[in-house]
């Protein structure tokens, strides 16, 4: 007899969702989180797309600690001197309200509380050392000299899954699988944020940028998310490019981003509240390990479930979805009274048909685009030059846009044929 039906390692969105769903289905659940309180080890890029959450808590928008709903989405290029961007606003976002900026210590704390209310035993401030095995089956977890047993262990450790890696349940992480995420949260008054970003009534902005001013093949994206009375500003840095250069400090890229002439004014006079860093899963479908085994399942970032095509970034919603699916599988196993590998395969089955895996499969190879010189070097410069030539009054006869574009294309050091192919590939993959 195991002490628990299920043990969940990690109280992030994936773990708390799994624990809550299992507990409310009558399972005896232990949720263990090393941070105390939950969320004190978490960092997120910022936007929670909440549709998945409504499966768990239909009224989540009323009680969850949300910062601002996203009414305004920006995608842009930053070069040394310029900014070119698409700025999209729609009243539809305001009516639908699915995306919210969140701060994780608050969100995770709320979700852990919900799991506790559902009946899970929530333990914080304790690090799980590893798994307990018996006859090649996971039978629980190890902490210090103790073993706590359960029929199934849900590993929801986040982007740096120590237990899963150390127990050989997933490959160690490589340059292609993750990027370095760095974030600063800056305090400004709610009013100042509203004024600077032209926002009203709890509306917020989510902006992502390609940092075209970086040199030597170093590639990074930048982001700005508005919270209630803070702004989350950060960068996501490609490790392979940084390694190749081996001269640029990751934290300097963060500094360059927030000091960019078109970013700095947003943050001016803001007081730094927090500096944080976190790995961002970028590996796509290739990075997703086998999601289940004898007595265990892997969920959320630990399973590499995240998506980014440079314009849409998702992670927490996948985590919640995978947590719920893991719970469904565990509940089914409990009904059968059997938690073997073939039983837990149901989790995989659910996931293979989930939006998460389908998105990731569809956008397979997207990182080749999101982390391409095309996006991070050529396009920003090209857009800057074309727009500059178009708008700049020289006193000479005007040119057609096509003419300007062609001149800039010819003037660039890129192989034209390759560029064409690249653009085609980009359109297809995005």
């Amino acid at each position, binding site marked *: 007899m195991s002490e628990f039906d299920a043990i969940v390692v990690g109280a992030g969105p994936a773990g708390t969702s799994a624990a809550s769903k299992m507990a409310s289905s009558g399972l005896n659940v232990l949720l263990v989180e090393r941070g105390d309180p939950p969320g004190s080890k978490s960092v997120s890029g910022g936007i929670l797309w909440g549709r998945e959450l409504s499966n768990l808590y239909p009224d989540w928008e009323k009680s969850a600690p949300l910062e601002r709903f996203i009414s305004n989405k920006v995608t842009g290029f930053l070069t040394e001197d310029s900014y070119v961007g698409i700025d999209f606003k729609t009243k539809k976002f305001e009516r639908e309200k699915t995306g919210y900026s969140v701060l994780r*210590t608050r969100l995770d704390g709320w979700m852990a509380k919900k799991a506790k209310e559902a009946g899970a035993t929530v333990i914080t401030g304790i690090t799980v050392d590893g798994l307990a095995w018996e006859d090649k089956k996971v039978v629980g977890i190890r902490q210090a000299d103790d073993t706590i047993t359960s029929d199934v262990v849900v590993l929801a450790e986040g982007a740096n899954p120590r237990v899963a890696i150390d127990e050989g349940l997933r490959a160690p992480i490589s340059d292609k699988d993750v990027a370095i995420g760095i974030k600063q949260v800056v305090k400004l008054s709610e009013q100042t944020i509203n004024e600077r970003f032209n926002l009203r009534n709890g509306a917020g902005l989510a902006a992502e940028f390609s940092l075209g001013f970086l040199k030597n093949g170093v590639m990074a994206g930048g982001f700005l998310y508005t919270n209630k009375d803070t702004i989350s500003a950060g960068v996501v840095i490609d*490790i392979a490019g940084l390694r190749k250069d081996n001269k640029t400090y*990751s934290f300097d890229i963060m*500094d360059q981003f927030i000091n960019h002439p078109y970013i700095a004014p947003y943050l001016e006079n803001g007081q730094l*509240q927090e500096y944080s*860093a976190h790995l961002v899963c970028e590996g796509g479908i290739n990075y997703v390990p086998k999601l289940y085994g004898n007595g265990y399942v892997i969920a959320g970032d630990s399973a590499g479930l995240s998506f980014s095509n440079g314009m849409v970034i998702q992670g927490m919603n996948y985590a919640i979805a995978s947590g719920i699916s893991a719970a469904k599988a565990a509940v089914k196993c409990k009904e059968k009274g059997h938690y073997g590998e073939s039983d837990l395969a149901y989790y995989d089955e659910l996931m293979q048909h989930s939006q998460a895996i389908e998105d990731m499969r569809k956008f397979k190879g997207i990182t080749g685009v999101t982390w391409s010189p095309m996006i991070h070097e050529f396009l920003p410069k090209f857009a800057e030059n074309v727009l500059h030539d178009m708008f700049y009054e020289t006193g000479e006869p005007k040119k057609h846009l096509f003419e300007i574009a062609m001149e800039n294309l010819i003037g660039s050091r890129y192989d034209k044929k390759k560029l064409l192919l690249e653009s085609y590939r980009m359109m297809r993959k995005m």
Partner: protein
Amino acid sequence: MNIEEKLSVLNYKTDPTYEHITVNPSICEVCPDNFCTFACPASCYKMIDGKLNFKYEDCVECGTCFVACSHGSVKWTNPKGSQGIKYKLG
């Protein structure tokens, strides 16, 4: 603001009894790239007088160095209990 000053706004519960990350000096001594010093967002890895200096106390537990070190020097574990970084916003 330099990185040290940024880190100074953070709340750490440093564990003097357990270093959750360790490096192998014999590997670092002959390291050709010292990429950890560039990758680590908290500047825990520094070259001082040509030698690698690592301090775990400033670690924000992102895991970057574990990926960055391609020579097998970095041994990464989670801090014990709730020691280490304690974000107030996340």
